[in-house]
């Protein structure tokens, strides 16, 4: 707290320009990017324009603020409050105001406004010409879909809110702002759809965000860790997305969105476990394939979680479980392997994880070469050298593929992590251990909440209406109700009735 008081000056502007400029120069000592432009107006008054280079739109500043200011300076001479006149009627910029407190001026400067100071005037004109170059709206790279909008959020929160507004043209879309981070002063918006979202959840999110005490927020992950219900759980309790359409879908289902300036990833909650297994394309393609893909993903979730553990359990405890020919094949492959099945599986699993980690770091050009080298060459030669057996390579690569079918990366990480304790349990207790691990996990999941909503809502606690969008994806015309946890206004369709395509009077038959 003490260094904060030292950095931000208290007090107000004085009449003398030189003293004001000196104060601000003291605040911004060793800040080479802060520009102090000395001006002398036509009537001889001295003035100073202060801004941070790169944060302002310089063309707009010079055309719409600087020129009118210099030209109109004759009119200012005998004005009692020249700053107010300037801000209200002379400068042709969209947003402008006046401030006298130094703290306000400093914070405006850091947010990208230009400040005009005049001699014999104790007010500063704030010209909000925020600009500077930031990435424009581009295609989503982390959540790719074949069908569906391609645009993704950017680092600029203003662009992000605009992307949301493009989709939701309603004043019911509310965005409450908060400032987080002593140093970064990051803007955070909590967005929700009024009359659809649960007000209590909105308040809970806002309270938790406002209670955050941290020097800086660089990514929505910071916020996520502060506002989640169970910080010690391996399971993600908030979903993130960089797709505006996914965010809009969240809003329409009554969820709360948290937008953080400086990151394209917005948070949403409350979420359920099932939702993490759904992809946006489930809803965009026709429901047949949506259903099939969903079942495929659920079954591969089990593969990703259990396959190595089951391999270990079956080959070291339950050899009688396998068909005879298969048990002989596995035994033949393992004949020359010096390690127990657990070590063998761990070697492969860990090298696969390392390969994945290395693939992220490596430049794109080499990345591919390394993954081919790693996957093919190391796998093949490890088998040939008799370090690991071929079935383990199959198991590990199948597991790797399976973990990529999980549409949400944060859930995929959890599954990847949980695989290892399950493998250990399997190597000690066989299938019994795997079952124990599952029981623990399920107990944990049953107790988990996301912003107060049970994690397994729909299944436990069972909600009949939610079944249409958990294991199956009902056709859109049949999903007339929103998920049960958006407590208010659950009817998605007018009068909550089924409305199927075609002419409703003749039952959908075309003439």
């Amino acid at each position: 707290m003490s260094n904060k008081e030292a950095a931000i000056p208290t007090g107000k502007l004085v009449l003398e320009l030189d003293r004001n400029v000196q104060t601000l120069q003291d605040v911004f000592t060793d800040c080479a990017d802060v520009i102090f432009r000395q001006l002398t107006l036509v009537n001889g008054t001295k003035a100073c324009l202060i801004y941070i280079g790169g944060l302002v739109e310089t063309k707009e500043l010079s055309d719409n603020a600087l020129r009118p200011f210099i030209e109109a300076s004759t009119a200012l001479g005998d004005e009692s409050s020249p700053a107010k006149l300037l801000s209200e009627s002379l400068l042709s910029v969209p947003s402008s105001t006046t401030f006298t407190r130094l703290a306000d001026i400093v914070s405006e400067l850091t947010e990208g406004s230009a400040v005009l100071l005049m001699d014999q005037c104790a007010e500063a004109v704030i010209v909000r010409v925020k600009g500077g170059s930031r990435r424009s709206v581009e295609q989503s790279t982390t959540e790719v879909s074949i069908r569906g909008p391609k645009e993704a959020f950017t680092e600029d929160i203003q662009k992000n809110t605009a992307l949301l507004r493009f989709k939701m043209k309603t004043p019911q879309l509310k965005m409450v702002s908060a400032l987080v981070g002593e140093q970064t002063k990051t803007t955070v918006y909590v967005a929700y759809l009024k009359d659809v979202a649960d007000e209590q959840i909105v308040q809970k999110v806002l309270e938790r965000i406002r209670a955050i005490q941290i020097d800086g927020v660089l990514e929505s992950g910071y916020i996520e860790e502060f506002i989640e219900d169970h910080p010690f759980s391996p399971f993600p309790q908030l979903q993130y997305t960089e797709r505006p359409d996914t965010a809009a879908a969240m809003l329409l289902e009554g969820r709360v969105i948290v937008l953080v300036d400086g990151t394209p990833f917005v948070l949403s909650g409350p979420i359920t476990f099932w939702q993490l297994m759904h992809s946006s394309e489930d809803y965009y393609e026709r429901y047949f394939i949506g259903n099939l893909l969903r079942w495929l993903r659920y079954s591969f979730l089990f593969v990703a979680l259990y396959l190595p553990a089951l391999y270990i359990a079956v080959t070291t405890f339950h050899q009688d479980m396998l068909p005879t020919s298969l048990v002989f094949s596995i035994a033949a492959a393992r004949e020359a392997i010096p390690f127990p099945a657990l070590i063998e599986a761990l070697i492969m699993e860990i090298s696969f994880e390392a390969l994945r980690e290395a693939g992220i770091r490596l430049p794109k050009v080499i990345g591919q070469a390394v993954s081919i080298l790693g996957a093919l060459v190391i796998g093949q030669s490890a088998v040939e050298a008799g370090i690991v057996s071929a079935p383990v390579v199959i198991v590990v690569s199948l597991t790797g593929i399976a973990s990529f079918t999980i549409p949400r990366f944060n859930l995929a990480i959890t599954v990847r992590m949980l695989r290892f304790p399950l493998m250990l349990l399997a190597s000690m207790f066989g299938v019994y251990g795997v079952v124990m691990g599952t029981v623990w996990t399920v107990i944990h999941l049953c107790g988990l909440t996301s912003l107060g909503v049970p994690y397994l809502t729909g299944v436990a606690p069972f909600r009949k209406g939610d079944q249409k969008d958990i294991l199956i994806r009902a056709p859109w015309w049949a999903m007339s109700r929103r998920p049960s946890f958006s407590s208010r206004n659950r009817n998605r369709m007018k009068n909550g009735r089924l409305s199927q395509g075609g002419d409703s009077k003749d039952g959908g038959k075309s003439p």
Partner: protein
Amino acid sequence: MKKIGISIVCLVLLAGCWDRKEINDVAFIVGSAIDMEDGGYRSTMQIAAVGQMGGPQGGGGSSGSKAWHVESAFGRTIHTTREAEQKHLSRILHFSHRRVLIVSDSLARQGVIPLFDSIFRFPQNRLSSFPLIAMGEAKEVLTAEAPLERTPAEMIRELAQMATLEPINMRIFVYSLLTEGIDPIAPAIRKIPAAANLKKDQKTTVELAGIAVFKHDKLATILEDRLATGLLLAMGQARNPAIEVMVPGEERNRRAIVLQISKSESQIRPKLKNGRIEMDLSLTMTANLAENTSDYDSTDYRWRALLERAAEQRVTRLVEDAVAALQKHKSDALGFGDAVHRRYRSHWARLRDRWEESEFPQIKVTVKSDVNMENDGALIRSLDRKSKELKPSS
């Protein structure tokens, strides 16, 4: 956290599941054979030599060395043979993949219950494995080369599956052993040279020799060839048997016609006549013409009717002979006793004790068969032959 810690400790200490064994420390037994030896049993076990089964280099298995290994041990009981066996094996014996259990015929004549007792107590054994009777020494069968399969046991298993329509596994065998009024049967096998007239490079293989019929748990006899076919036909268990029929009216020429039975059903109906039990055995079967070496036109319906009658006679003969053999050896493999038990409960109570010994061998059995020819094959007429007109007299 404390609770989780305690539960982990409990799991480790209380589970008692420390029976971990790596798959390459296990000797998988694929088949075993039991022979009699002075004062005990010699148990021969065929163990899959998985190392020879094509490892990482994925060879074909034609490397010369066999993918199986045979060991034997002597013991006073079946379980002690297992103990003795383990003493000269570097890997732990594992029985859950045993497919076949072969008992020599001489041993089986003394009863199989003492042999099977330990098998049913030991949970690794599967009831889906097949009991078989070896003609001669059982251990010999296990050393046949059986070049087509990975192990001889695998071949024997396939044979056991083919012997009857519903394969007789341990469960079915024991079920009929325990049911009053049915005696079990099992396929009988023996080792033969693969090609009888080949001098060089002679290999041995296993042959399905017949059906072993039991009197309670003791082997009564082994029915071979036509007796076995008759028995299986009577049971409705024959797997597409071929019935050879002499051409009606041309028996002297020894021109045969072969009918392949595609579907057969048998029904046993006991009758109580003047206080005596009689049996009606009726068979209904559908046949296809498989081979016609005569000159007759198989599309002629009159001739076909004659052929069907001749086939019926033939089937009836087969079944009658098989039943007579069963009666002679006092083995109620067809379950006549069970049929009486179901139909005439009170009468059965009086019969039960003397059924096998005096009643069953005496009862009159009437066999009726009905053959229906459905398909005479793709050929309209026999190749390159002028078809004969049917003589009105025959």
